[in-house]
């Protein structure tokens, strides 16, 4: 068997130029905005990779179909019970609001979409592709959750689909509070030396103690996530800066691999319908959603 041997010097120079040009093009792509990278990804996934992605979907659906049906049945039963239990709640809420002189309760607006997690060669994926079934284009960044709890944040959208990051992404931050609002803090992903990625609640005042099992939910500050979405449960204290603050390890409610359907919060509709109520800072280019303002009312109100 014979393989190619060294070419003529001028051809070698041309090959080197091609390689250097492609290397610069790669660096240019790396520096492109997420919107532009999303456009390339969409073109590639809808053309060359379309048959493979279709085959993946077929395999996955057929492998999980029976489990999915059982899960849907369980969810339907549970929802039916919840609807029955809350039959009088809306009427009661309306009456109380009239007595208290409050305006009508605003329903939170969400768009449902399909989540396709990325699949890197190593480790878990931190990014996902989100495709709304209604074609609605949410204002980004926008929080994504499942009915169980927080999943991540949608970073960029284009024509009904978008790229987002799971809460496991190193840049992800979310403002949280305890259900009674007594403690607030900022959560981020935390990878211990071994084991699954958890969350870390940072900057809790030294005199505040959180019991193991305490539920943490989104505070809504920053306007990226609606308030009241469950995020995780406190596991234990992780670190303490004597006399100053301490941090807690938090077990997430939702793991990225569990989610196939996501709910993206349409904060735009709230802003357009009631711009005067609630100050939402959407122009902050920072990648986290650390507290920058007062969030609009959401499902928890």
């Amino acid at each position: 068997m014979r393989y190619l041997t060294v070419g003529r010097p001028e051809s070698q120079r041309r090959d080197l130029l091609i390689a250097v040009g492609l290397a610069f093009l790669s660096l240019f792509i790396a520096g492109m905005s997420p919107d532009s990278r999303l456009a390339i990804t969409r073109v590639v996934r809808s053309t060359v990779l379309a048959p493979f992605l279709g085959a993946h979907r077929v395999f996955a659906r057929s492998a999980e179909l029976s489990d999915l049906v059982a899960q849907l049945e369980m969810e339907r039963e549970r929802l039916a019970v919840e609807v029955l239990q809350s039959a009088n709640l809306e009427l009661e809420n309306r009456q109380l609001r009239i007595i208290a002189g409050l305006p009508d309760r605003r329903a939170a607006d969400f768009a449902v979409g399909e989540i396709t997690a990325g699949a890197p060669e190593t480790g878990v994926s931190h990014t996902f592709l989100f495709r709304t079934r209604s074609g609605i284009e949410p204002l980004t960044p926008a929080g994504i959750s499942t009915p169980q709890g927080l999943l991540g944040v949608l970073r960029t959208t284009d024509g009904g689909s978008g790229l987002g990051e799971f809460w496991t992404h190193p840049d992800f931050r979310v403002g949280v509070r305890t259900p009674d609002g007594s403690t607030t803090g900022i959560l981020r992903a935390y990878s211990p030396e071994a084991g699954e990625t958890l969350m870390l609640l940072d900057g809790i005042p030294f005199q505040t103690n959180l019991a193991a099992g305490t539920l943490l939910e989104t505070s809504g500050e920053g306007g990226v996530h609606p308030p009241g979405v469950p995020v995780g449960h406190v596991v234990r204290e992780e670190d303490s800066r004597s006399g100053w603050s301490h941090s807690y390890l938090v077990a997430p409610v939702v793991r990225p691999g569990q989610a196939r359907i996501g709910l993206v919060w349409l904060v735009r509709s709230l802003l357009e319908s009631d711009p005067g109520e609630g100050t939402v800072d959407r122009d902050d280019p920072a990648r986290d959603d650390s507290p920058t303002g007062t969030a609009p009312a959401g499902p928890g109100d």
Partner: protein
Amino acid sequence: MDVERSAWAWSLAGIVALLVMHFLLRPLLVQLPVAPNLLIGALLLATLRLRSGHAAALGFGLGILEASMALEGMGSYALALTAVGYLGARSRDLLFADARFYVVAYLFVGTWLAEIVLLLLGTTSPGPVRLVAGSGLDALLTAALCGGLEALTASLAARQV
């Protein structure tokens, strides 16, 4: 049909089969702790027969495809596989002897180095064990599988002629 053309045709069929298998089985392969990297294997086999500029272009294209599948690291995948394509073809030019052992060694070393670079460029910190031992085992499997395929296509080409 002469030997060279027949060998190239069979080798091309093998490379395409490897790429199809890679993208088809990818959801399964990424879940395994140790798995052959068919993408890099196919690229390295292609670099055996392509000019270095063409190998770099192939690496760039495969990098874009891989990043679109993984949904992350588009620039870094393209850059790393461009370098693998170019350096693979250049090192073949400089070092290669036409013996089967060298093909397997070339596949092993090439895959190992490429995997280490891709792991370092990824968003997940791989840890030293995964970085060295995990990628080494991946490279071993890749070299065995792709080396076997190269031997098979060569013998098929020889038989056809």
